[in-house]
């Protein structure tokens, strides 16, 4: 490794650690949240350094972008006096024993992880790629070899939406008092671009970094931006249409997983002839559904019919 690269890595990781500490222990909550968002952004860079472009895309969009938006929206929904809540610790323990314990744990963990041989499954995945139906190894693992994980994961996401909606109606964040004409203008410019890149990433997922998760995240970014610019869920979209869009990804996944049993009798065994098409269908349905689900998470509750207005 080139010394400059090592230096870059060291700086990157050091800032990540410092920001992570800030994100947990900063003096007021706003600072903590902003530090955490920067931490997410740097994590995305770290993924690039680890040759994991798929994760970098997802992290930038989800970990830094949407989580940040969610956190800021949460801060906006808290009572003002709680937003600036100062750092409180569980007890007035001195920091020293905790630090010692943390350091010892860190060192033990490091020692163990350094000793790991890490054989991995890379070779096996490579040898199975010809039958995978897609060219990108990560997409092959996600949507073919370990598709059951991904199905359950989409179930987790839908469940999160149901869980949040089950708590009650949406709580809107207090909006800015000054009108900001530049934001809607920006959204009008960016929204089509984001939708376009969503489909680009979906298409690209078959053979390169991309796929359903980054694509869904981009779509969600577009929709959340529109919401921030003052757009509201159109009235005819609330209720059944929105719920169907949310459920579509998981349902499509289940239908295809069970449907292919007609041919081979094995759950999730795509018939080789149709594998690319089926995976593409799953990918598109999952990507769009993820986009809508992420937006629904941001809404913080079921949109009411009475808001009026439209995009």
């Amino acid at each position, binding site marked *: 490794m080139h010394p400059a690269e090592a230096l870059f890595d060291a700086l990157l990781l050091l800032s990540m650690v410092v920001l992570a500490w800030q994100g947990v222990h900063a003096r007021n909550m706003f600072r903590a*949240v902003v530090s*955490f968002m920067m931490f997410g952004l740097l994590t995305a860079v770290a993924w690039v350094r680890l040759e994991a472009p798929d994760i970098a895309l997802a992290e930038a969009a989800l970990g830094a972008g*949407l*989580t940040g938006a969610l956190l800021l929206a949460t801060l906006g*929904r808290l009572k003002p006096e709680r937003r600036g809540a100062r750092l409180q*610790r569980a007890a007035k323990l001195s920091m020293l024993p905790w630090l010692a314990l943390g350091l010892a744990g860190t060192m033990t963990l490091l020692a163990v992880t350094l000793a790991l041989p890490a054989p*991995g499954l890379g070779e096996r995945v490579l040898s199975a790629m010809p039958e995978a139906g897609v060219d990108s190894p990560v997409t092959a693992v996600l949507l073919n070899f370990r598709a059951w994980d991904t199905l359950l994961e989409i179930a987790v996401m839908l469940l999160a939406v149901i869980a949040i909606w089950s708590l009650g109606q949406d709580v809107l964040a207090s909006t800015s008092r000054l009108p900001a004409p530049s934001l809607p203008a920006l959204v009008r410019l960016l929204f089509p671009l984001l939708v376009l890149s969503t489909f680009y990433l979906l298409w690209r997922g078959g053979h390169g970094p991309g796929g359903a998760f980054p694509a869904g995240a981009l779509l969600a970014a577009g929709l959340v931006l529109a919401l921030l610019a003052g757009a509201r869920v159109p009235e005819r979209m609330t209720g059944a249409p929105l719920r169907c869009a949310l459920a579509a990804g998981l349902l499509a996944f289940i239908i295809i997983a069970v449907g292919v049993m007609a041919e081979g009798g094995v759950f999730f065994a795509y018939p080789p002839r149709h594998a690319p098409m089926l995976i593409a269908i799953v990918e598109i349905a999952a990507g769009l559904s993820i986009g809508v689900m992420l937006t629904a998470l941001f809404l*913080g509750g079921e949109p009411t019919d009475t808001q009026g207005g439209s995009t």
Partner: protein
Amino acid sequence: MSLPPGTLFLLASALLFAIGAHGLVTCRHLLRKVLALNVAMTGVFLLLVTLGRSGTTVDPVPHAMVLTGIVVALSTTAVALGLIVRLERRRP
């Protein structure tokens, strides 16, 4: 330098995990606890991917696991944040 490859990343992942676990235990504010959890999660994700790189080929399985993990973490974070908002609204 004679460090084995990935040492820095492993060190960072261990530190992040420790910061997250420590913050989860010691902080009072619920939002901080949620942030700490996410930091610890990132530490584990870094560990997974760094380990997946040590072989001759890049191992895509940890990549897929981390992608899944990021989405799961986001979903659970969103639920936690939703609960926090409702709790604050019902604060007497």
